[in-house]
C-alpha cells in the first residue's frame, strides 16, 4: 500500500547575501517524504542541510519554491512540528519536567493533561527520577534526551532533527540512536533527520538522501530495508557496511572526502 506524502518540498531555492557575496545554500531542491518514514539527509557541512530544516519549519523564508506539510503550505513558523537541534537548548531556569512541558506552556495547553505523558517519555529515555533536576545537573546525553522528549510531547506528526547527536561523544551517540529508534518504533512519526555521520544514517534511516556540497542538491537516494530494531543486526549485517561504504564512496566521488 502506498502511503501518502506528509511533507513535500518543491523546487526550493535559497540564497544568502553576505559581505563576501551571495551564498547559494539550496538550488531547486525537491523531496517528498511519506507518512511514517524515517528519512535521513547526509551531507558535507555547509551543504544547506540546516537551512532546509529551518525552511521546512517555516523559520526561514525561501527565494523560490514551496513547502507543503499535510496539504498545508508553510508560510511562517509551522507549529505542528517537533524540532531537536544540535544543541539541547534546554532552558537553564526550568526543571527537566518543566523543560519537557515547555512547548505545552508556550502553546497554552492544559499542563495537567500532558504531565503523565511527559513522565512516561522521561521514563522511556531513562530520565525518570531526574524530573526535578535542572539542566546543569545532567550530562550532555541526558540533556539531549530531555530535549527529544520536549520535541515529541505535543505529539506532532513530523519530527525535524538537525544533527541532534552531533555534539555528543561516540558512545552516547550510539545509545541515543538506539533510544530514538525505540521511541520511533513506538510512535511511528515521520522523521527528517540530518546528520553528517554516515553510520548513524544507515542505522536509523528508511531512506537516505545524500546531498552535494553547496549549493545543496540531491546526489543519491538509498533505501535501507534492514528489519528493525536494528542495532545488533546492523553490526552483524554485511549490507550495513556496504551501504556505509557506498555513501562514503559517493562523498569521495564528489570530492568532499579527498584521498
Amino acid at each position, binding site marked *: 500500500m502506498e502511503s501518502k506524502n506528509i511533507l513535500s518540498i518543491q523546487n526550493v531555492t535559497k540564497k544568502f547575501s553576505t559581505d563576501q557575496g551571495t551564498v547559494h545554500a539550496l538550488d531547486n531542491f525537491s523531496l517528498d517524504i511519506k507518512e511514517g518514514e524515517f528519512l535521513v539527509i547526509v551531507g558535507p557541512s555547509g551543504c544547506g542541510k540546516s537551512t532546509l530544516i529551518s525552511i521546512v519549519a*517555516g523559520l526561514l523564508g525561501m527565494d523560490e519554491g514551496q513547502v507543503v506539510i499535510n496539504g498545508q503550505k508553510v508560510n511562517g513558523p509551522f507549529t505542528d512540528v517537533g*524540532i531537536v537541534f544540535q544543541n539541547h*537548548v534546554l532552558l537553564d*531556569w526550568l526543571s527537566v519536567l518543566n523543560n519537557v512541558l515547555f512547548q505545552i506552556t508556550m502553546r*497554552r495547553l492544559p499542563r495537567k493533561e500532558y504531565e503523565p505523558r511527559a513522565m512516561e517519555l522521561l521514563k522511556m529515555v531513562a530520565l525518570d527520577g531526574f524530573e526535578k533536576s535542572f539542566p546543569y545537573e545532567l550530562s550532555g546525553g541526558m540533556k539531549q534526551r530531555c530535549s527529544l522528549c520536549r520535541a515529541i510531547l505535543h505529539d506532532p506528526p513530523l519530527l525535524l532533527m538537525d544533527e541532534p547527536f552531533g555534539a555528543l561523544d561516540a558512545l552516547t551517540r550510539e545509545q541515543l540512536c538506539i533510544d530514538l529508534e525505540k521511541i520511533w518504533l513506538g510512535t511511528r512519526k515521520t522523521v527528517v533527520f540530518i546528520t553528517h555521520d554516515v553510520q548513524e544514517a544507515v542505522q536509523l534511516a528508511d531512506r537516505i538522501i545524500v546531498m552535494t556540497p553547496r549549493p545543496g542538491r540531491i546526489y543519491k537516494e538509498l533505501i535501507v530495508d534492514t528489519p528493525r530494531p536494528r542495532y545488533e543486526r546492523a553490526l552483524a549485517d554485511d549490507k550495513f557496511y556496504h551501504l556505509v561504504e557506498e555513501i562514503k564512496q559517493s562523498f569521495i566521488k564528489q570530492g568532499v572526502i579527498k584521498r
Partner: protein
Amino acid sequence: MGISKQSSYPTWLKYLWNRKTQSTLSFVVFFLLWELVVIFFDVRSYILPRPTEIAKAIVKYHSQLIDALLFTGRSLVFGYIVAVVSGIILALPVAFSKFVQRAIYPILLFFQVIPKIALAPIFVIWFGFGLPPKIMIVFLLSFFPVLINGIIGLRSVDQEIINLTRSTGAKTLDIFFKVRLPSALPTFFAGFKLAAISATVGAVIGEFIGSDSGLGYLILTANGDLQTDYAFAAITFLTVLGLTLYYLVEGLEKILLPWHISQRQDLNKES
C-alpha cells in the same frame, strides 16, 4: 582539590577552621597589623588613626554618623532605583529595534564616555544644594552599567531557543516573559552589581561638591579639622552602606537565579 590528605587535626580545630572563619581571619589580621604598625612607628593620629581610635570615634559621634548615613543612603537608594528601572526600560527598545539602536546608541555611548564626575558642579548650579543633584549623580554613575548590561543580556539569547519558541506559535509577549527575560536576568544582575558600586561613589562625590549633610560632607569637614579618626569613622559607615546595597542585590540574585552558574553551590564547596 585533586588528591587530599586525610587530615589529622582535632575536631575543635576543624570546627573553628571553616570557610567563614577563614574569610574573617584575613580581616582580623589586617586590622591587627594596622594597629601594630601605627603603634610601632608612632604614627600621629591625625595622619593615620588606629582601628581602635576609629571605633572610639564611631561610638562618640554615632548620632551624627547615623543622621549622615540616612541622608547619603536616601540619595543612594533613590538614584540607584531610578537608574535600574530606567536602564532596563531603555535597554528594551535598543535591544529589539535596529532603528532605535542606530539612532540612540551613539548618543548613549557619547554620554557614557563623559566623565560624569565633571558634571557634578554643574548640577549644583542647576539643582541647588539639596538632595536632587546627589540623586542625579548617583543616577548618572549607575545608569550606564545597567543599560549596557541590559542590552547585552537581552541580545545574547540563544537563537535556537527563539526558533524553538517561534515554532510553538507562542505570542511575542510570552516569548519575552518566558524566554528572553529569564535568560537575560544573569547579565542584568551583573549590571546591577556594578551599578551598586558606582552608585556609592556617586553619592559621596555629590556631597563633596556641594552639601551641608551626608557622610561625604562629614568626611570633608572632619578632614578640615584634622579629625582623621572621625573621617575614618564616616568612611567606615560609607563602606558598610555600599556593601549593604551590594549584598542586597546579590541576595536578590540568589533568590531569583538559583539555577545560574554564578550561584551554584559546588563552586564554593571546595574548602
